[in-house]
Each structure stands twice: as structure tokens, then as C-alpha cells.
């Protein structure tokens, strides 16, 4: 399941309505670089799951799954075991020192602030770090899973998402118009165009994707973006 970063160049994709951008895999790779060695990390369903494929074993990062596992290393290639899955239903491999616990203990861990970082997908992030990622009004109903607890409880919340919608609408906005997951919870946004920090004074551009200019990021962003800091190009 480990991707080959050297072959990632071809994963940069283009569409008619959205900017030329990094693939989902490159977003996951860049999000993985945000994780500190030795940290405990929860990965949301979808794109964030790919992050597990881009961490180095030597970094000793341990993944926690809402359903009650601490210490899985990534998605398993071996036979499917119905009782050994992550919160997305995918089979996982365990590291030495892993543990199982029930959902109550799992969310005590999450809500209680014991998870170093969570990487979640996003529909929208606002200028003050509000997150919307569980409810698409056009579809209704919604599926929240552990997202609200993770947004409240993870010490660092990293949102990994496409910078704009398929229709080219910014997902980074002044105020979310999708229903919120939690207020003022996002610390870092990693997209196909940029890495943006959410600070007490608003959004601050830290990195741009290869071949993407600061101006382009600003143009595809629907909220005020401080570009005055040192802005680097992402190293992938």
C-alpha cells in the first residue's frame, strides 16, 4: 500500500472547471508530512485514509480507529478479517503494542484530547477555522460518524481536501454555508493547491503546490488569505 513518491508527478490532474491540481494521493502525501514522529493519529474516511500509505515506519506514527484500535500501521493486504477493520471498514495491520477497546473508551480517548492529530476530509473550512464535512444539504440526512468528536477532541486538526468543488467553487470561505461539524476547530488545511494555517488572525498561506502561484491560490480561495509570511513551494 505504500505509494512511490517518485512516480507521483503523473498524478497531478486537471479538469475543465477547476485549476490544475495535485491528485488525492499527493494531498495525502503532503498531509502525512504534517504528522510528527511518534504521534497518535486518527484518519477520517475517504481521502485521509490514504495518509496511512505515506508515513515512514521509522517515524513510529500509530493510527487510532474510532471503532476501538490503537496502533494500526495501515491498510492490510492480507485476508479480510471482519473483526479487524478501521472505522471505514478497511482491513488493517497491527503494530507490536497495539490495543483494542470499546467505543466508549475510544471516544474518551478522542474527546478527551489524547489524540495528537486527526486528518479529516472537508466540504468547507471558514476563515476562523469552522469545519463543515458531514452534511450535503442537497443530499440531506448526513453521516457524521466520529467527525464531530474528532473535530472537538484532536489536539491538531488537519483538513485534507480539494481546494475547490468540481464546479470550481471555493471550499475555503469566509463563513461556511454548509452545516458545521464544529466551530473554530481546524489548525491546518492541506489541499491540491496549498497548505494554509488557521491562526488567531485568520488564514495564513504557508506553501503552494508545484507550479501554482500565490495569486492563483488567492483567486481560488473564498476568504481573506494572509500571504505575507514566508511562502514556500511544497516539497513532495
Amino acid at each position, binding site marked *: 500500500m505504500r505509494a512511490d513518491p517518485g512516480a507521483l508527478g503523473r498524478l497531478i490532474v486537471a479538469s475543465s472547471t477547476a485549476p490544475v491540481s495535485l491528485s488525492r494521493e499527493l494531498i495525502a502525501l503532503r498531509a502525512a508530512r504534517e504528522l510528527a514522529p511518534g504521534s497518535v493519529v486518527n484518519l477520517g474516511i475517504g481521502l485521509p485514509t490514504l495518509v496511512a500509505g505515506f508515513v515512514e515506519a521509522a517515524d513510529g506514527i500509530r493510527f487510532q*480507529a*474510532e*471503532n*476501538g*484500535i490503537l496502533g494500526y500501521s495501515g491498510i492490510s493486504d492480507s485476508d*479480510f*478479517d*471482519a*473483526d*479487524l*477493520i478501521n*472505522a*471505514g*471498514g478497511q482491513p488493517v495491520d497491527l503494530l507490536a503494542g497495539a490495543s*483494542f*477497546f*470499546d*467505543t*466508549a473508551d*475510544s*471516544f474518551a480517548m*478522542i*474527546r478527551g484530547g489524547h489524540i495528537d492529530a486527526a486528518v479529516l476530509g472537508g466540504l468547507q473550512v471558514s476563515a476562523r477555522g469552522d469545519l463543515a464535512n*458531514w*452534511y*450535503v444539504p442537497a*443530499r*440531506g*440526512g*448526513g*453521516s*457524521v*460518524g*466520529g*467527525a*464531530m*468528536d474528532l473535530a*472537538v*477532541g484532536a489536539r491538531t486538526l488537519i483538513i485534507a481536501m480539494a481546494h475547490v468543488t468540481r464546479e470550481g467553487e471555493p471550499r475555503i470561505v469566509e463563513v461556511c454555508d454548509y*452545516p*458545521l*461539524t*464544529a*466551530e473554530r476547530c481546524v489548525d491546518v488545511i492541506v489541499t491540491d493547491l496549498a497548505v494554509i494555517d488557521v491562526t488567531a488572525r485568520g488564514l495564513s498561506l504557508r506553501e503552494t503546490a508545484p507550479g501554482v502561484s500565490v495569486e492563483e491560490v488567492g483567486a481560488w480561495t473564498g476568504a481573506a488569505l494572509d500571504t505575507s509570511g514566508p511562502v514556500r513551494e511544497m516539497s513532495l
Partner: protein
Amino acid sequence: MNAEVFFTPDAAVADIEDGSTILVGGFVSAGTPSNLILALKRSGQTNLTAVANNIGLGDLLDELCEDRQLSKVIATFAIRASGTRSSRFEAQYRAGEAELELVPQGTLIERLRAGGAGLGGVLTRTGLGTMMAEGKQVLELDGESWLLERPLRGDVALLKAWRGDRQGNLQYRQAGLNFNPVMATAADLVIAEVEEIVEAGEIPPDGVGTPGLYVDRLVQCEPIPVRWDG
């Protein structure tokens, strides 16, 4: 306090009444009582409220919608944000034929735990400032806001464990724990399917995930494999 051993899942669920609230253990494929769910389908009871982590993620809970047995679902994951396949429940929900109460996972397990532990509720930050807070009491304590979440209980709990002994002690495998141990505490009638029924003492005291006093009925079943492929 021995658990009653049933020889078929159908017999174990036969007296569940129409209109019951059913707690269903499991998390996607792990620790999911698929034999009991299918027995409940065959039983034909209707107007049921199901409380479960998920419906329509490869689980068989969605099968209960074929004959419209579920009038309400309380879950964390019920309507997919994307994807082409739609569950039967999703279709019935969209048609206004079934009700959905969506609850954050950590809040759902705490509400169930409160229901089983004799607590009147818990205060959480989860859901503050979101749709989940609508209609709920917010307490301001020492300058912080907390959402009051109230207990949740079932008439019946359907659980899946690895092994059960004749006293009702349950031992779980790996991530098969999930919602099962807490749901065991929060229903009037607790029914568990297990892969093997053993004599008391075969499950070591520190391997018991659910103490026997919580479990009323046991049935030994070959597990039915389910899987979610997204």
C-alpha cells in the same frame, strides 16, 4: 443467573414485539450480529426503532427495510455523502417513510452508556454550534458551554461476540468489541450470538468483555461475513 441458550437465532428473537427499540451492536463488519438481524427479518416484526452505528454499509441491518420493518433509525452513519449505490433505508428515508436521528459516534456511545449506568445524562462539547444542538439544553458552567445529552436505552439488544459461556459472560475478538459491551448494559432483554458456547470458567476472568449478568439469551451461530467496499 445462567443465560438461556437458544438453538436458533429465530427462536431467540421470536418474542420481540412490534414497536420495540432494538440496540444493534457492531461497527460495519466487526462484531455485527448478522444472524440475529436476519432472524429479526424473518420474524416480520414491524415499526421497529433500530439503534446502531451504521446502516447500509454492507451490514445486513438494511435488509430489515425490504419489508419496511424499521420506522426509525438512530445511527451515526446512514446516508452516504457520495457514491452511486443507495441503501434501502436511504430510499425509505428520502421518501419520508422512515425517520432518522443522526447522532455523533462519541455522543451515541455516551448516551447508551448513561442509559446502562443509571446516569441522567452527560455534558459534551461535541455538537455545540451545530445542527446537533438544536432543541437541546446548553449549560454554561464556569464560562464554558456544554451540550446536555440524555440517556438512550433499548427494549432489546442484539449483540455479537466471539465466545459466550453458560453464565452469559461474553468474550470479544479484536475490534469486535465496539458498541457491544455498552449496549449489553442498556437494554431490558439482551440477546447475543456467539461463535462458540463454552462452559463457565473457559473464558478467563480478565478476558470477559461483558459480565454474564447483562446477558439473557445466547445462541451459537456460524458468523455471516459482511464487508463494506465503500
